[in-house]
């Protein structure tokens, strides 16, 4: 049984990985199948896991004397209101949980956002050391400070930036932002490649992935490739027959 589960799991894993990657060639039935299966299983998992969480966390606490059970029952009722999203007549009820979620979320975030994500950063930037550190660190710190100031000035729209002094500031700010975008893009490439490499490791059965993956990989790849070419030819022949 466990052998069957391992093999079947490896088979499905390899099949759906390659089915998703077949989209790189063009949209096809394999990629659509994988897409639908993914959406279905992800939603199924989400619902099942929610219910399991409620059962496990609240098992044995369903008594009116339990602490917080009234609040939990209220939350449950509130949660059910989400489903009025699908009713034209009672759509307005859906807005109640939406408003509560938005309100509590914003309230919680605003409570600390100014300190955690603004003032602390400003303090850190203002407090960077130029003396008492090695020359390279001092240069880096100075550069950071100048970059921050220039970019902030670049976005100062309340002053008409016609004076010649603005030109070098704006040029430097633009280069700073380009460097920032470049770094972000570089990291994006790193992420995309890493995720792809992770899938390749899965296909090749690199430990801890099941070694059985390596066995299925070439055969399923061949199957998908052949059917993909066949499907392509079929679509083209149908298109030419129509014209």
């Amino acid at each position: 049984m466990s052998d069957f589960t391992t093999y079947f799991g490896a088979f499905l894993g390899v099949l759906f990985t390659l089915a998703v990657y077949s989209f790189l060639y063009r949209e096809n039935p394999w990629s659509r199948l994988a897409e639908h299966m993914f959406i279905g299983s992800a939603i199924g998992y989400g619902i099942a896991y929610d219910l399991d969480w409620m059962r496990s966390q609240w098992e044995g606490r369903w008594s009116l004397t339990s602490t917080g059970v009234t609040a939990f029952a209220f939350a449950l009722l509130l949660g059910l209101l989400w489903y009025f999203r699908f009713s034209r007549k009672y759509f307005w009820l859906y807005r109640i949980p939406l408003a509560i979620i938005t309100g509590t979320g914003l309230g919680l975030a605003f409570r600390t956002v100014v300190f955690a994500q603004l003032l602390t950063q400003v303090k850190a930037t203002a407090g960077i050391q130029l003396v008492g550190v090695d020359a390279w660190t001092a240069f880096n710190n100075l550069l950071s400070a100048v970059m921050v100031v220039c970019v902030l000035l670049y976005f100062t729209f309340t002053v008409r930036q016609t004076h010649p002094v603005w030109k070098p500031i704006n040029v430097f700010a633009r280069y700073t932002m380009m460097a920032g975008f470049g770094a972000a893009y570089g990291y994006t490439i790193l992420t995309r490649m890493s995720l792809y490499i992770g899938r390749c490791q899965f296909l090749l059965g690199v430990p801890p992935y099941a070694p059985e993956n390596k066995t299925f990989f070439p055969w399923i790849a061949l199957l998908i490739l052949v059917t993909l070419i066949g499907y392509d030819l079929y679509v083209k022949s149908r298109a030419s027959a129509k014209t």
Partner: protein
Amino acid sequence: MVAEGETIWDKLENIDRRILYLLIWIVVLPPLISPIGLPISISPSTVAYYEAIEKLPPGSMVVVSFDFGLSALGELYPIAVATFHHLFSRPVKFAIIATWNEGPIVAKMIIDKLNPEQTYHKVYGEDWIFLGWAPGGEQAMAALGRDIWGTITKDYIYKKPVSQYPIMQHLKSAKDVDILISLETGTPGADEWVRQWWEPYHVPMLVACIGVMAPTVAPYVQAGQCLGLLPGLRAGAEYEKLLGRPELATAAADAISTSHILVLAFVIIGNIGYFAKRRRRME
């Protein structure tokens, strides 16, 4: 083959994306099958991440949060495995939580792989505990910070009340936590932890994130809110090297290098095409 009226520079600028994808397969697969062993240099932020865990006093309380799902396995799984090896090898206590509902699956995979009872002689419920998923995103983080027992009432593995475990007698709110480790890909993640755990309770953080999130988290490192940052698989390889446990990230390091060299080549070729065309137009 260059069509009439189309120059080689036009071709270079408009290479069929399928050729590019094929080339990526070609440069990535060989180093994974037969690693080259290119050198890996270690960055200061990786050292800071390592040192922060290494220097934790015995008995310190750590919370590890899985703020990612299965889609980020390729990048964060090796880092998570290395972090758990490191934590289990230190005389510290830790709790595992997840703010993403797929997080517990990944955490369970890692626990099953590491088998801490056998490998590290760590006792569940005394040295570590798996609290599972805390639904609600940022709201859940705030609730956990205030009252962990009230937010997650039962543990993930045995479904027993958390109050019955010895480790939980020392872990009731964020005030009891010495360090928070967030393995994250986005929202909820480091931003929300900074807002809900760093600002009100000043819990120091370590963050391991997918590369694309690094520019978002980097300001927290500079501000001292985050003690160390592992951005992406490349940093994972550095961390594995520091730990002396080369695993998945190290195995992927060569493929990262070859794929990046290819991307650089694409960028250079594209730019050559662009500038050559511009020069022709000017002429």
